[in-house]
């Protein structure tokens, strides 16, 4: 039973939306509990904040797409390839971290260059320094978060599959009441 590309796209959209929202919710909750939320948000412009969220969502979507490529997470009769999911979550979480760093730095670097106070050589040196150190830190941070969310995703996928299988258990005599539109005209009951 192969899932269609549209099914996979919905799954990817759902997982990436969940991961992005979940990460931001956790960060906000932690900052709030530490009584630092107000100060942090004070320093952040609304438009910039929205832009950062959208950037994170976009990089997360792309990384999630790469992470689940080739994995069948949908078929409830096949066990979820959890270890593969964890490994990919770790790897692509790290990549996501680097991508987000680039998305974050891009506008800042453009402003620095536009200011005209840095030479080209200085710019290259700054970029290399930030990318190497920042890249390593972003990869590590992103990998840990990616692994954590992969674990959560795995658990939730197993729950969904278990619910589906529980619903189909012992129902051989039951008449199915719902179907995908492509099977809508198959074996209609007589009369």
């Amino acid at each position, binding site marked *: 039973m192969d899932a269609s590309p549209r099914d996979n796209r919905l799954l990817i959209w759902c997982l990436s939306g969940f991961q992005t*929202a979940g990460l931001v919710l956790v960060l906000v909750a932690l900052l709030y509990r530490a009584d630092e939320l107000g100060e942090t948000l004070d320093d952040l412009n609304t438009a910039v904040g929205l832009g950062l969220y*959208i950037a994170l969502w976009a990089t997360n979507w792309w990384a999630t797409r790469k992470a689940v490529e080739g994995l069948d997470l949908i078929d409830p009769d096949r066990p979820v390839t959890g270890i593969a999911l964890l490994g990919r979550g770790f790897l692509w979480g790290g990549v996501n971290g680097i991508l987000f760093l680039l998305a974050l730095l891009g506008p800042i670097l453009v402003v620095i260059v536009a200011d005209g106070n840095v030479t080209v050589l200085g710019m290259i040196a700054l970029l290399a320094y930030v990318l190497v150190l920042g890249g390593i830190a972003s990869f590590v941070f992103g990998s840990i978060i990616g692994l954590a969310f992969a674990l959560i995703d795995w658990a939730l996928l197993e*729950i969904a599959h278990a619910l589906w299988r529980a619903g189909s258990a012992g129902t051989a005599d039951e008449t199915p009441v719902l179907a995908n539109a492509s099977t809508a005209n198959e074996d209609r009951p007589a009369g």
Partner: protein
Amino acid sequence: MTSLYVPLLSMSYLIRWLHVASMAGLVGGAILIIALSLHVPAHGVERDGPLLSVAQTYEWLFWLAIGLLVMTGVGNLGAFGSAVPAPETDWGGKLVFKLAAVGALALLSIVRTLLVVVLSMTTLRATRNQHTILRWAYTSTVLLAAAILAVAVSLAHG
């Protein structure tokens, strides 16, 4: 007339509008699916392809709404700035509850979305039990969203 346009164009008004509109869509869409599912003919008189299409569309929009809700929710908090009430206050307790409830809604919704995705697989059909499970998933979504809404109103208006 000018006084009407000014609030409509302000960022904070737009943020609040998006926040409320996203929640309305999220709740209304789930209620629509529950209502439609109650009219699914029993015993195979008609296969219900339209309900599945509506559910798939809802799931796409749901995750867009969640993103908008979180994004604009942080924006709304930003409007308080450093004047946001401390976590030890009643208001703070309600906010923490609301954040946790939104997290729980997102967790529940992964399961719900996946059930819809599994149902979409071309060779699978839902049995009556699976249909009931899916309906309960949407009902839980509405109930949890209603709880979040109640807390949100309390946060906004005391």
